[in-house]
């Protein structure tokens, strides 16, 4: 599959502050790429460069094979940018707002009316068509932002924290809307702090910290990589310290120690089979009441891979 978004050694400096350092990113057509990182990691800077709003200090960013900075005019009709705030014009109603941006993409006449109606229907905003934009709730505004970037049917969506500050219902609705867009074949780059939702929505993710890309690839891969070695939680009815000491002697065990009422057993890298644990403990007379492999999700992976450092 062709890379729709590609950055090569992308670097952005603000004076002495390095916001992005040699970022190499590749997002294929139809991918939904989750961009994860602590505050100040460089996510918004990357998205702004891809949205042609910032010039890189060094390196290259390409969208649909067009180079940002040199071919920005060709890029703009292909992208839809949703910033992490809602840019509201005073004294405009919802339909005017969408028609305004449709006109900005040179969509006029009957075609504009039809597209705006379709987009309002897709985003379930038809009933708000006459409502003042700056009087909408936060969830409605975010939905209108998505509607805005759909009027010109872009290939690529650049979404910076689209679900930030939304209530649970609005967040779920937003997620469903984005899933629908993915089904429509859009390539989506989305930054968010709500990792379980990204795991549900995205097929690939990138983790960035202090302007450097720590990881980029499929969600399953990152979980696997974060896992390193399997961790098993074991519960025994009595003498957990003795049980831990027994397990620690096993050649496949890296470490075993009591932790909050259960024993945390870390297996050596590459060891997947932990059936020896119950048999060894039962043979030694211990009674087992818990045996569970530790779950590694995107959140745990993020916590393990990043150091929580901000610029």
């Amino acid at each position: 599959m062709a890379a729709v978004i590609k950055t090569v050694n992308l670097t952005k400096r603000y004076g002495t502050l390095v916001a992005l350092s040699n970022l190499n990113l590749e997002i294929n057509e139809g991918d939904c790429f989750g961009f994860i990182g602590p505050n100040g990691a460089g996510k918004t800077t990357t998205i702004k460069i891809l949205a042609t709003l910032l010039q890189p200090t060094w390196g290259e960013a390409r969208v649909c094979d067009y180079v940002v900075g040199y071919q920005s005019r060709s890029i703009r009709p292909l992208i839809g940018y949703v910033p992490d705030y809602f840019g509201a014009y005073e004294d405009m109603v919802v339909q005017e707002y969408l028609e305004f941006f449709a006109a900005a993409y040179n969509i006029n006449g009957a075609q504009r009316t039809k597209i705006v109606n379709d987009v309002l229907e897709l985003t379930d905003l038809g009933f708000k068509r006459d409502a003042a934009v700056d009087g909408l709730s936060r969830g409605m505004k975010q939905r209108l932002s998505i509607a805005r970037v759909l009027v010109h049917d872009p290939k690529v969506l650049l979404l910076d924290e689209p679900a930030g500050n939304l209530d649970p219902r609005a967040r779920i609705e937003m997620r469903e809307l984005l899933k629908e867009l993915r089904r429509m074949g859009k390539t989506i780059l989305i930054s968010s702090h709500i990792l379980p939702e990204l795991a549900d929505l995205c097929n690939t993710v990138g983790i960035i910290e202090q302007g450097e890309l720590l990881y980029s690839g499929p969600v399953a891969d990152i979980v696997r990589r974060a896992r390193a070695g399997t961790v098993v939680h074991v519960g025994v009815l009595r003498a957990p310290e003795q049980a831990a000491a027994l397990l620690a002697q096993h050649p496949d065990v890296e470490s075993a120690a009591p932790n909050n009422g259960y024993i945390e057993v870390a297996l050596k890298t590459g060891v997947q089979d932990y059936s020896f644990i119950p048999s060894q403990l039962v043979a030694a007379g211990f009674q087992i009441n818990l045996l569970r492999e530790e779950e590694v999700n995107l959140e745990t992976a993020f916590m393990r891979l990043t150091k929580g450092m901000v610029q």
Partner: protein
Amino acid sequence: MLGIADYLWRLVPGNPILLRVVENAGKKRRDAIIRCGYLGLLVVVVLYTLVTGSGDPGNLADLSHTSTVLFQQMSYLQLGLVALLSPIFTAGAITQERDSQTYDILLSTPLTNGQIVLGSLLSREFFIIALLVSGIPVFAVTQIFGGVAIQSIVFSFLIAASTAMVTGAMAMAIATFKVGTRRTIFSFYLFIVVYLVGGYLLDRVDFFRLDWVDSTGNRVPTSTSWFTSLNPFLALRVIFKDRLYLPPNLADLPQSYQTWPLGWYWTNPASFYVCFMLFLSLAMMVPSVLFLRRLAQSTTSIKGWLLQKLRLSAGDRSRKPRPVWHNPIAWREARTKASAARATFLRYGFILLGIIGAVVLLAMHSTELTPKQSINHSYDPAKNTLYVEGSGQPEIPVAPGVEVKLADAPATLDDLYGRYEVANFTQDANQAIATINLKEYPRELDPEQARSWLLGLTIVEFSVILLIISNAAASTVTREKEDGTLDLLLSTPITSRYYIWGKLRGLVAFVLPLLAVPVASSLLFIVHDLVRWLAARDSNFQWIVFPEAMLTMPAMLIIVCAFAAILGMQMSLRCRTTVRAVMSSVGIIVGACAALGWCGYQVLQSSTPPELAAAIGAFSPFTLLTILIDPYQFAGNGFNPNAGTSYDPAGVRVAAFLVCAVAIAVYAMGIWSMYKSMVKNFDMTIRRQSR
């Protein structure tokens, strides 16, 4: 007692809000520049007056006169700068607390309402007061030469300080009562300008003066007016003891005006102004102090509540969408800004008032009064007699060498065929008319007054339009930056060329209906005059407004507005905040117009050949308006029949017309070059600011 002292201490000297400002005072580079600029201007005035001062430098009386002139000029300058700067520094109070989100934090502290209100007010006034104090040594120069009473200097400072105080109190009241938004800052500024200029102009109208009986028993109007005690510039003029502008003595006033406070109001305008403004400041602060927290708890603004009560707003904020133009940027500037309820009200109010004003002027001008004596086509050439209606005489013979004058200018016997007021006539020994002075038929508003009023109206209207477009242009990009909509637009295919052109086009379209008001006002007079001219076919016919104004006036006004718009947009692009962009832009426009107007006026009044003077003056929009509407009063010798060879109205009109076309081309080139430069630097400037 200790509690009261502590309360008072914490109210002002120990007020933490005020202390924060005082402690940081002088650290800001901008404040230092303004202070230096202010003192520099005062020093320049001192030097200029001393160098150009007339009389013998060794003569104490001459020095004293120079000192008086110096004091007057410095006082005007000081008051002018305070009037200009005070709204700038205090208007921010309207929204700043809310915008910076420190307001709620302040309200949740143990600070009392009084501390918050007074602290905010005085911290904003602090800079102005410091500015005034820094000027005291410069004013002290006048004491070296004498001629200026200490009391006058004190009053000059008090008038400036009370003006600053009332401006600040008004801004605080607007902020507290939630009747202000970001847009209110400009309306507030405009209100102060209109109040000061309007009061000054209305002061010249006899209608607002009182009649009093002089020593000879004649009723004469007072030289001061109802506005003197309410306008700082007029109150200041009183303390100069100008013989042409002296308040009446208490005994000279009609009996009913001699009681307090009317007696005080009329006889001592300066002290009344100071006391009244301080009282007004207090009156505006007290409700703020009493209701600050209660008003902060309310969820609707007073304006919103009032609109709902009057059923002008349903509160749900929805309406039918309007069609969007092909150029959305131009549509946004021209339509959405004008459609807001307040903007609609102001626009239509402005148009309505302007047209009503012009119609009233025309109606007054066309209403003829019955003169004491007149001739009405009553010359009989066969008998060589003239019937002067109102003279009490039958047909009077006309002497062979009769001297006829029309409006004090030599006229011919043919003029006796006309319809004129007879100012006076003399008869020779044979009772025949030897000299006769004719005047135009008297009107409720004679031509001179009509021209003056129309010119005043046009200048005020155009000034307001210029301020409106400067404000709209200066806020156009910064507001998008603040609202976050600029990034959205920049990520669309809209280019900087398209964006800036759209803004410019939209802004000019936005003010076109407003510009139609002064043009339509002049058109009314031109049509009226045309009908009269066609009926009279008089070679000496004097137009109220020259017909060529229909070509030059709209073209010049539109191009100057476009120039103001591109200048405002330039500032808007460079500045990070709307307030700074608006203030810079308005300052530049006001300064440029004042300088151009002053130069144009000086050139017209000088000994420069009138055609050349008119040609130079045509570059300034205000001077051009003067030449087109009231040249007889302001355009110098070119329109003065007694100026000999310099009298050449036709030549001056042609010169002004032709050079006006050149001036329009020059303005257009200026706009084009600024537009090109903005297009070129747009991306770089925006990117630099987006850090």
